[in-house]
């Protein structure tokens, strides 16, 4: 056994040498520092994606992940005057980076990058919005789409109530009109499904606390997300109502109150995982993939459970409409998501050329295929008509070994650690003529045209969940506009932090400790008083001012 192992290792080394000499061709190995607000991994990129880049550019990526090492790295590196060679930051930070001279003017090279420049419209709009640098290119938006600002391509919106189809059918597929109906249904589901197959306790709701206050939105991330079920969207600390007016978050007629109360009722009925509020997202992810949660509310959460096999068996999660809800959804992010790519100010000469070549490849069909679809022969195969067919769709979930020509190792371990893309997954892949994302492939649709899907279509009389919402007038699709909120100054940071901490603490206690409605109402009043004491009103006025231009642009786009 040992002998085979050593032979095997020797073979890998030889292969490595061969590929290395093929790539080297006169260019030295270049290590690029990537300052990355999106990454969940800090250090040198390893595995198959590292090999893909090395073979093509002889480049190694050193990822500096602020989410891993703490946001103080942003302060220390900018004090040194060098954030990184490639900079990937939250959109709100980008103008100040340009102002502080940490980002490079890439007007000379960017127009030559033909793959990136397929998004010229969006790149122009963004860079024109940067003050003080007229007519120049500094930033490249991320995850831009090739659709239109007011199109909604998804067949499932970002957040909607999703239940397990088999459990929903087992309790008699009740028609849900209100959140109370949903609670009654969940009580029954909890009765027939108190444990997963391994005997571990399962709950309808399992919440997590480590995303609270993220993205500058105050409050519990889970509650904030669920407010979109009633057409509301939190902008900083101000609740945007469906009629495009702002209202203070803690008003009792707003969805934050409604959802908090709903979750507290669920808690009183024993439907909330007692670890909610102390467990991190990672723990929740493992609970989702082992069947210990009966409700999902982010469209991507289904990726932790809905495999093709489970869809065929009818045990997948699927949207179940609640009659009185009115769903808020952002239209395609035509102008890109909330982060920006830039190049470090100190990058010059050959290094600059090679970095731009790499970024252009990153936005090429080949690069986007690696990012969105993985490896041919592992994640997908090419069918006879040249279109992709899903192959091992659990490669990421189960960290399957990758083929030898990609250097071995687990697929998930070697996945692209930059964790952000220039080309959105809903763009059309010119090679296949289909979108990059697997769920839009005809082959995938055929594979998942299961009994479950057919039953669902029959019961609700619609093609998919977005179609149902449109048919029933339950969808508020908010058009995409190019907008960068002003960065908070230190006073606002302190204010937001105090108010957020106060709100989160009270909300968790409201959900997880109130045993009666009287307790709940009393604690809610106490919370409002405390938040006002910290200066919530001031923060609210500030946020209304910051976000009003975006709302105006959305109104104009909707006309």
């Amino acid at each position, binding site marked *: 056994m040992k002998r085979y192992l050593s032979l095997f290792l020797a073979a890998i080394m030889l292969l490595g040498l061969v590929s290395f000499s093929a790539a080297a061709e006169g260019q030295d190995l270049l290590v690029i520092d990537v300052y990355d607000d999106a990454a969940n991994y800090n250090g040198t990129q390893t595995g198959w994606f590292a090999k893909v880049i090395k073979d093509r550019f002889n480049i190694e990526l050193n990822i500096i992940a602020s989410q891993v090492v703490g946001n103080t790295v942003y302060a220390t590196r900018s*004090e040194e005057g060098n954030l990184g060679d490639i900079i990937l930051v939250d959109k709100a930070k980008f103008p100040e980076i340009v102002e502080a001279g940490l980002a490079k003017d890439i007007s000379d090279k960017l127009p030559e990058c033909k793959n990136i420049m397929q998004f010229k419209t969006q790149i122009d709009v963004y860079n024109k919005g940067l003050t003080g640098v007229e007519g120049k290119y500094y930033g490249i938006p991320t995850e831009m789409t090739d659709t239109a600002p007011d199109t909604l391509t998804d067949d499932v919106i970002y957040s909607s109530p999703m239940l397990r189809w088999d459990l929903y059918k087992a309790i008699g597929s009740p028609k849900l009109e209100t959140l109370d109906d949903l609670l009654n249904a969940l009580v029954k589901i909890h009765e027939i499904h108190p444990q997963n197959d391994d005997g571990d306790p399962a709950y309808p709701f399992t919440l997590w606390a480590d995303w609270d206050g993220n993205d500058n939105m105050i409050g519990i991330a889970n509650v904030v997300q669920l407010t979109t079920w009633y057409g509301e969207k939190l902008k900083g600390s101000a609740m945007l109502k469906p009629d495009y007016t702002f209202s203070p978050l803690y008003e009792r007629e707003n969805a934050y109150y409604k959802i908090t109360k709903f979750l507290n009722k669920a808690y009183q009925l024993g439907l909330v995982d*007692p670890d909610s*509020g*102390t467990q991190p997202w990672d723990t929740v992810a493992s609970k989702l993939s082992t069947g210990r949660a009966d409700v999902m509310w982010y469209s991507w959460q289904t990726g932790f459970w809905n495999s093709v096999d489970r869809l065929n068996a009818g045990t997948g999660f699927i949207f179940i409409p609640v009659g009185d809800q009115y769903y808020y959804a952002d239209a395609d992010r035509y102008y890109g998501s909330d982060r920006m790519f830039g190049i470090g100010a100190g990058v010059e000469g050959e290094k600059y050329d090679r970095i731009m070549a790499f970024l252009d490849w990153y936005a090429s069909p080949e690069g986007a295929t690696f990012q969105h679809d993985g490896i041919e022969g592992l994640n997908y195969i090419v069918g006879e008509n040249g279109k992709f067919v899903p192959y091992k769709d659990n490669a990421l979930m189960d960290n399957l070994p990758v083929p030898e020509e990609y250097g071995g190792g687990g697929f998930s371990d070697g996945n692209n650690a930059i964790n952000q893309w220039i080309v959105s997954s809903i763009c059309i892949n010119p090679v296949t003529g289909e979108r990059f994302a697997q769920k839009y492939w005809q082959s995938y649709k055929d594979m998942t045209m299961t009994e479950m899907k057919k039953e669902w279509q029959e019961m609700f009389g619609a093609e998919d969940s977005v179609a149902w919402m449109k048919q029933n007038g339950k969808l508020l699709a908010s058009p995409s506009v190019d907008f960068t909120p002003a960065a908070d100054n*230190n006073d606002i940071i*302190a204010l937001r*932090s105090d108010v957020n901490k106060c709100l989160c*603490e009270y909300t968790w*206690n409201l959900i997880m400790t109130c045993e009666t409605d009287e307790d709940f109402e009393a604690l809610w009043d106490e919370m409002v008083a405390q938040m006002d004491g910290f200066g919530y009103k001031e923060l609210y006025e500030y946020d209304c001012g910051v976000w009003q231009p975006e709302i105006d642009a959305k109104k104009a786009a909707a006309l």
Partner: protein
Amino acid sequence: MRMNPKKAQAIREFLYILPFLILVALMSYYPLYGWVYAFHDYMPPKPISSETYVGLKWFQFIVSNPVRAADVWRVLVNTFAMSGISLAFSWFPMIFAVFLNEIRCKPYQKFVQTVTTLPNFISWVLVYSVAFNVLSSTGAVNSVLTSLGLIDKPIAFLNSKEHIWFKMWLWLTWKNAGWAAIMYLAAISAIDEQMIEAAKVDGATRMQIILRITIPCILPTYFVIVMLNIANFLSNGMEQYYVFQNNFNRKTIEVLDLYVYNIATSGRGNYPLSTAISMLKSVVSVALLFITNTVSRLVRGEGFV
């Protein structure tokens, strides 16, 4: 011209101590430069400059509003309470050492000592993971209680703010008592055997020997350790509270160090405010040191510094 030998010796001796002076300057005085951030409206990526100077703004900010001032006060109360509890129970490791010393069966004594010392070498993160596995809603304790039918709903040990100060002291003691006892064991072994022999000849019981000989002999050690603890009164460490904090107990668990950390790292982080509060801590520490010194001078007739 030859150097006067006394002067040469002075220079040589100064050179001996120079490395330590450099070390202190680098590690203790140079970081004080960071205090300058408390007087600026510093916001990365812009470096501080004369334009960002705001004077005492951030110190005023702390007391600018009654709710926020109450918040800082709450944190101070937590800090004093938890430090106070561990100070009030600081005799515990000493008594533990005395009793440990009385164990006649040597292998058993060694065993107890090893088992109680080991937790000192475990990081707080691991201590928390032990706590989580034992006390979480699906942890060992809740599983046993549920299967015995004693409870029908898991008890939220880690999510409650009840008795959190005392619980934190228990964890701290579990982790540190064995280690702290080592110092006392050393002091006990230094006690003159003849005294104990003489006491035995005079018919003293074991309890009498402990009360009249062992404890008085190790009291000086105890006082030194108490004094060191007082100097660290405000810096009661944040790791322990950091790992145990959650949305249900934060109000009562947040100590100064943790508060400073939370301000600097939540969201975009407010570095000036965080620095200002940590400076407050130094001011209070110096005040405490002077008070202790005065008390010591009054009680013992001599001060520490």
